[in-house]
């Protein structure tokens, strides 16, 4: 199996949906969790799977924690390849018969 192919779950689609809307915007885990209403128990393994498959990449936020007064965040964004695959996965869900619309 191709390493970039992963089983796309419903929570994963939710994450991909918000990320594909603004592909250049980096999101922290906390922001993604808040946006899609996912707990940390589900979120981080999901992000790791997407990252391992090359759909997402993550980097540390470019801030000085002492100046910002908070720890630096790990920010995720879609890769070019991830955008293509995410778009395809979302399109498949939207066109699949009998699939209820999810999210808003």
């Amino acid at each position, binding site marked *: 199996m191709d390493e970039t192919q992963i089983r796309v779950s419903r929570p994963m689609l939710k994450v991909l949906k918000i990320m594909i809307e603004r592909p250049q915007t980096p999101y922290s885990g906390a922001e993604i969790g808040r946006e899609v209403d996912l*707990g*940390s128990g*589900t979120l981080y*393994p999901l992000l790791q799977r997407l990252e391992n498959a090359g759909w997402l990449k993550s980097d540390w936020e470019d801030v000085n924690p002492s100046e910002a007064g908070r720890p630096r965040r790990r920010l995720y964004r879609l890769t070019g390849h991830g955008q293509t695959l995410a778009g395809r996965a979302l399109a498949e869900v939207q066109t699949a018969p009998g699939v209820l619309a999810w999210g808003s």
Partner: protein
Amino acid sequence: MGLLTSLLEWVVAFVAGFLGHVVAHDFCEVTPMISEKIIEAAASQLPVSIRERYLDEWRADLWDQPGSIAKLKWAFGCFWSARRLRLQDACASRNRMSIGFTFENGETVRLDVATLTWLGSTLKLLTLTAWLPMPLRTKLLQGVTSASAVVTAKRYGAVPDQQRLRQLLLVLSRSSNKNVQLRFYIDGIAAKEALGDLWSDDPMGPTQKALEMIPELKKGRKQ
């Protein structure tokens, strides 16, 4: 009497309210600390290679959680996710496995996954040629391993470089020494933690063991 009862009720309600406030206040005070401890415990379950990254990430995301209850909930979630992250990382690490050989003199050689298949076939050859004197065997194997390197490069798209070739030859030449320690690593050359060790006084022991272990390591069963 009625007035006294009302007064008592009022005092009890006041005290209960006050204590409730104190307890709630204390709970809010200690919850971030408890959450932090939970996150540290969660991160400690992770493999070394990803431990620090997730600890920092979780701390930052915990900081962003509004309120004590949300922080606590997030921290418990991290504890749960650590287990799954560990499993997923083990699967993803299949391509980052390595085998290390530690020799009597303390020298360690590690081989990464691109070399493993190559090593497997070469070790078979080593077993077959065990009856040969070592200098002759090393010389013979040198040519064979170079050829194997080309085959491996074509098949796996990873070119075993000169350094790897030297490492392998070193393993082969030293494997006949007594007291060879075979170490199995996950996470490739960066890992500090060995999966397991095997000491052997039998010169062919470690190489035979490596032959048995390689397929298992490649399947990611060993953690």
